[in-house]
Structures are given as structure tokens and as C-alpha cells.
């Protein structure tokens, strides 16, 4: 078993014209050290065995590919299948990546773990694996997200990690990432930075993709078993894009499968109040990589808007930008309102409460299923469960506890 089935990125960390390593000089050595370690370990049998052992016994993989009978009945066209990443330990796909990266940290002998988080899922997933190995852990989180995701903040603290609210800039995920990078610049000797998405400087987009690709690999096998062919479409939400890249990547060479990424449309893409750089952004450099970016004409990064903290990010992983440009994946956006509607619909129809991030992928079924006939099979990546969003949804619905 190896991790990657793609020639990208190239040696400099580029996917076409996207990606790269745009960081202050102080981080160059750390990135090089990480890249060398990863390149050595990714084909090492002991390392791979340990990773897959943790995925089965600690995370609970493989996650089921579940036939959604009532959603299928509801749309009256193709069959809808759910890849149940919400059933993973800690409730989202994020744990696949943190289980892998903490192994890298262990092999590199790093004693201190840092991470950024938006919705808090990556913070929880990082604090979880750090607790398991008894490593000191610091989580950076935008002050606005600390407010929106108080439940996850408490979970992170229960796991023994320190939460650092970040007040600078827009006080959301991008600012948490800035602060985590600053911490890493300062403590680079003993610290491992577990980045939470397929973003950031090379080699991170590659490493996070490779660890998360277990999702797409499982879907390929499960599709063969359950319906005897490859799905006609795979749908996933895209913020930084790690859950989407994890399920898309093994499908890149399977041309009969449409890959559809759903961005956060916020108030609507035409209003400019959203977090959909692949739909309404231009290439730029943020957080160490060149990719589509929400920016103004002066190159300043714009504030984003989304009901979902995990998608509230002005950039996107560089490989998604490349897949968009070469036309291998389609990127669409759905609004906050449509995502909330889908949140309720899926919860009531399937007894599965999706994360608000995931609800964006579900919301796109409405237009998508109209195009498809009854012989088609569509896979939705249920990237996370929605318990963490109950306060947000209740507040929007005007409910006080």
C-alpha cells in the first residue's frame, strides 16, 4: 500500500501554477525537514502499518458507505450514498489527518504540538491524538469561532490542550492560521505544526491529502461491492478542501466519476458576502501557497462570510485550484439559507445530523439530482456530524436554551 496515485505536486511543491512554499525564511528548514521525513516514511512498511492500524482501532475505519433510502426517495432520481466520516472517532474526517501527522511528529521526536482550527473539529482531532501520545498541545482559534463553537472549545480543553483565542484581523480561521505559523516560526526546534487542511506551504497540502485519501480509496472498494461500478458523481464541501481532496484524489484517474466541490455561498455569490474563492476569487498568495483567493484589487485578503465556521476561509487548497483549471473537478456554491435547509432535511429524512459544513454538500443535491436519471449513483461525503452546530442552528431558529 502506498499513499499517492498522482505525479503532483512537482519537486517544488506546485500543482500546475498553484502551491509552492511562500514562507518566511525561518520556516524553510522546518518544511524541508518535514518533507524529507515524510518522503522517507511514506513508503516505509512499519510506518504505513502503524497508520492503518490506528485508523482501524482508534478511528474506527473503514467508515460505511450507507444507502440513503429516504433522501433517494425524496429526490426521485439516482441513488444517494453517504460516506459516513461523521462516524469516525471525534465525529469528522479530520482525525484521519491528525492520526497520520502525529505519527510524523513522533518519528521526528517533536515534543510540542500546535494547530489552528475553525469549526473546532481539527482542534479536537489534534488535541485527541496529542493526548493519546502525552504531548503538549496548543490550539489557535479565531475569537469569533471560539464564540460560535464553544462546545468544541470545551472539548479541546477537556483533552488537556490549551486554546488560544486569536483577536487579530477577522478573528476567524485565517487569523488562527497566521498565529499558528507565528508560533511555529518562534518554536520551530521542538514544535510540530499539524495543519488541518490541504492548505499552507508545501509539503502540507500533499501530506494532508495523502492521509485523507483513505476516504476515497474506501469509496472505490465499497462502490464495487455495493453497486458494482464507480459512482457517477462524488459531492463534498470545500473550505480549505481536505475532506473533498481526500475523497476526490483516488478518483482523479477514474474519469467516469464527476467530482463536485461545494463552497460556502454565504449570502449568495453575487453579493460578494461569501467564502467561495473557486467561484468568485482570483489567484493569489496566502499562508504559504498560491491558490484561488478572495482578495481586493490591492491584493488584500477579504473578509469572508459563512454560517459554517469550517468553511469560513478566503483561500483554498492549491490542488483544488489546479483541478478547477484543468476541468477535472467542478466547483459550485450554495448559500447559508440552502445549507440550513439541507441540515434540517437530512436530519429529518435520514436520522443523520450533518455538520453545517457537510450540509453545503447536501444542499447541492437539489439542483444535481434534477440533472441525473434513476440509474445513477451519487456519493456525498458526510465530512462531519452536526452536534457541534446545535447552538448556531438554534440561535438562527430563535430558540433559547
Amino acid at each position: 500500500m502506498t499513499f499517492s496515485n498522482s505525479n503532483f505536486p512537482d519537486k517544488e511543491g506546485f500543482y500546475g501554477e498553484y502551491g509552492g512554499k511562500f514562507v518566511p525564511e525561518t520556516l524553510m528548514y522546518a518544511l524541508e525537514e518535514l518533507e524529507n521525513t515524510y518522503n522517507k516514511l511514506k513508503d516505509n512498511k512499519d510506518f504505513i502499518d502503524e497508520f492503518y492500524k490506528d485508523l482501524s482501532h482508534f478511528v474506527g475505519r473503514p467508515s460505511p458507505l450507507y444507502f440513503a433510502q429516504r433522501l433517494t426517495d425524496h429526490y426521485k432520481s439516482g441513488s444517494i450514498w453517504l460516506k459516513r466520516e461523521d462516524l469516525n472517532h471525534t465525529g469528522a474526517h479530520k482525525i484521519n489527518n491528525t492520526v497520520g501527522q502525529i505519527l510524523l511528529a513522533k518519528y521526528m521526536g517533536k515534543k510540542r504540538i500546535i494547530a489552528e482550527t475553525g469549526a473546532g473539529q481539527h482542534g479536537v482531532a489534534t488535541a485527541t491524538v496529542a493526548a493519546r501520545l502525552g504531548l503538549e498541545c496548543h490550539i489557535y482559534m479565531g475569537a469569533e469561532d471560539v464564540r460560535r463553537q464553544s462546545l468544541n472549545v470545551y472539548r479541546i480543553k477537556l483533552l488537556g490542550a490549551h486554546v488560544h483565542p486569536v483577536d487579530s484581523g477577522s478573528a476567524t480561521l485565517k487569523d488562527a492560521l497566521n498565529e499558528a505559523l507565528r508560533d511555529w516560526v518562534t518554536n520551530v526546534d521542538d514544535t510540530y505544526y499539524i495543519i488541518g487542511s490541504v492548505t499552507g506551504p508545501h509539503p502540507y497540502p500533499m501530506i494532508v491529502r495523502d492521509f485523507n485519501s483513505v476516504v476515497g480509496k474506501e469509496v472505490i472498494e465499497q462502490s464495487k461491492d455495493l453497486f458494482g461500478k464507480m459512482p457517477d458523481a462524488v459531492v463534498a464541501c470545500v473550505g480549505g478542501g481536505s475532506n473533498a481532496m481526500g475523497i476526490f484524489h483516488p478518483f482523479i484517474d477514474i474519469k467516469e466519476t464527476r467530482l463536485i466541490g461545494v463552497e460556502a455561498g454565504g449570502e449568495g455569490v453575487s453579493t460578494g458576502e461569501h467564502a467561495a474563492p473557486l467561484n468568485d476569487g482570483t489567484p493569489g498568495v496566502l499562508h504559504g501557497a498560491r491558490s484561488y483567493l478572495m482578495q481586493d484589487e490591492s491584493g488584500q485578503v477579504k473578509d469572508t462570510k459563512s454560517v459554517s465556521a469550517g468553511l469560513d476561509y478566503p483561500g483554498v487548497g492549491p490542488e483544488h485550484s489546479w483541478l478547477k483549471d484543468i476541468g477535472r473537478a467542478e466547483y459550485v456554491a450554495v448559500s447559508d439559507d440552502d445549507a440550513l435547509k439541507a441540515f434540517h432535511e437530512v436530519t429529518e429524512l435520514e436520522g443523520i445530523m450533518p455538520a453545517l459544513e457537510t450540509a453545503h454538500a447536501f444542499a447541492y443535491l437539489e439542483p444535481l439530482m434534477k440533472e441525473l436519471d434513476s440509474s445513477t449513483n451519487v456519493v456525498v461525503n458526510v465530512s462531519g456530524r452536526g452536534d457541534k452546530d446545535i447552538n448556531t442552528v438554534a440561535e438562527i431558529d430563535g430558540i433559547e436554551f
Partner: protein
Amino acid sequence: MNRLTSKLQNLKESNKKALVAYLVAGDPNLDTTLDLMHLFVDSGVDVIEIGVPFTDPIAEGPIIQKAHDRALKNNISLKMILELVDKFRETNTQTPIVLMGYLNTFISHIELVQSIGENSADSILVVDVPGELNLQTYGITNPNINIISLISPTTKDDRVESIAKNSTGFIYYVTLRGVTGSSNLNIEEIKNNIQKIQQYSDAPTMAGFGIKSVEDASTLAACSDGIVIGSSIVEMIADESKSKEFGRIGEYLREMKTAIS
């Protein structure tokens, strides 16, 4: 010859150390920045480094981050900064000016960067482009602009050589692991590393990041070609931005100048 190159050469020939001082353009406003630039020169500053504000300045500590935020509230753009430099040049044609910022703001205004003439800014320092990468790749080919690269305590020897080769202005030695304005200078390590750089390159080496006291300044000047002062000035600018009593900054810079002479 480029204004910066000749200035540093002259200083070196007369066995003097350079004092480089940093401020963020438009903090608290552009008129004040212009006044401060003249104050810098009057107080003995040899090179002015102008921070180009960016929404996500990942190499900056809290003091300079806040200055970027304040400047961005005034919608400061690279175009306005080059107009500021033009105004400065109306009365000062001697003091070299370095623009220090992040790649995204420079490539968003690439036509402006390319049109910088001889009587404007003299050099560019792009914090988030590793020194061995050529800025020409990003369309920055203006012969009037020379390039400053950073070398840090964690830069490996093989990279020191290639970075030094690409640096046409000076080599900026980052004196600590950390963001701007952090503390805890490791003087022995700094001395050794600057000596290493000087083996590879004749380009002047400036030491910066974390220099606060006159003691730091004089120790570091002794083993480099000059020093860069940033956060402590930016902090004073913030403190006095209402009163506009910037005399203290002039005094501080004169003390620094004396300390490195």
C-alpha cells in the same frame, strides 16, 4: 549605481555601521509617515525601511501586526506608498528606501513595481519569498530595484550560499527564531552565523528582529555591517500617534546611532 548599494558601500569604506529604521506606511496616516521619515534622517538613520501593509503579515509580531491593521483602516495601497516616496524625494534624494512586504501585495501591483524609477524606492524585501527563489519569476525585473533576502538561524549552509548570491541589496540576517519584536537574542549564535554569511558573500549583512536596547545594538553592530530597528520604533509611533510628540523617537535613534558608531 543604486542609491542603497552606494550608500552601504560608502559606509563600509569609511568603516561605519548602517542604521536601518522601519515604520509602516500610513500608520497612523501618510502625512505623519512623511514627517517621521524626515525625522529618521535628521536623527542619523541611513536607510529607511517602509512596511507595506498586508492583511496577513505572518512574519510580524503583535506590535507590527497592529500597525499593519491601523494602516489598512486608512486603505493604504502600494500606489499611495510610492506617491509618499515621491513626496519624500522632493526634499531628500540621498536616503535609500526599502519596501518591505508580502508577495501578494507586490504581485497585485506588478505594473507599479515595474515602473519604479531611479528617483523613488531603491529596494524590495519580500518576506514570504525564500531567498534562493528569483523574484523575476514573479515578474519583478525592474533594474532600478535591488533585492534583499533574509537568512535566519535555521538556514542551512548550502542555502546560505545561494541566497547570498541572489541578494543584490544587502543580506538581512534574522537574529532570532521568531516574529518581529520577540526577545532573547543569542549573541554567540548570531556572531557565528554572520561570519559564515560573510565567507560566502561580499554583500553587506544587516542584523535585525528583536533589537531593542543600545547594548543589543552595539553588540550586533560590532559583528555586522549595520542593524535594523523595527518594533521598538513602531511601538513609540503607536504610543505618540495622538500627541504627535515624536521627539522621543528622534532621541532613541540618536542613541542607537551613537551605540553603533
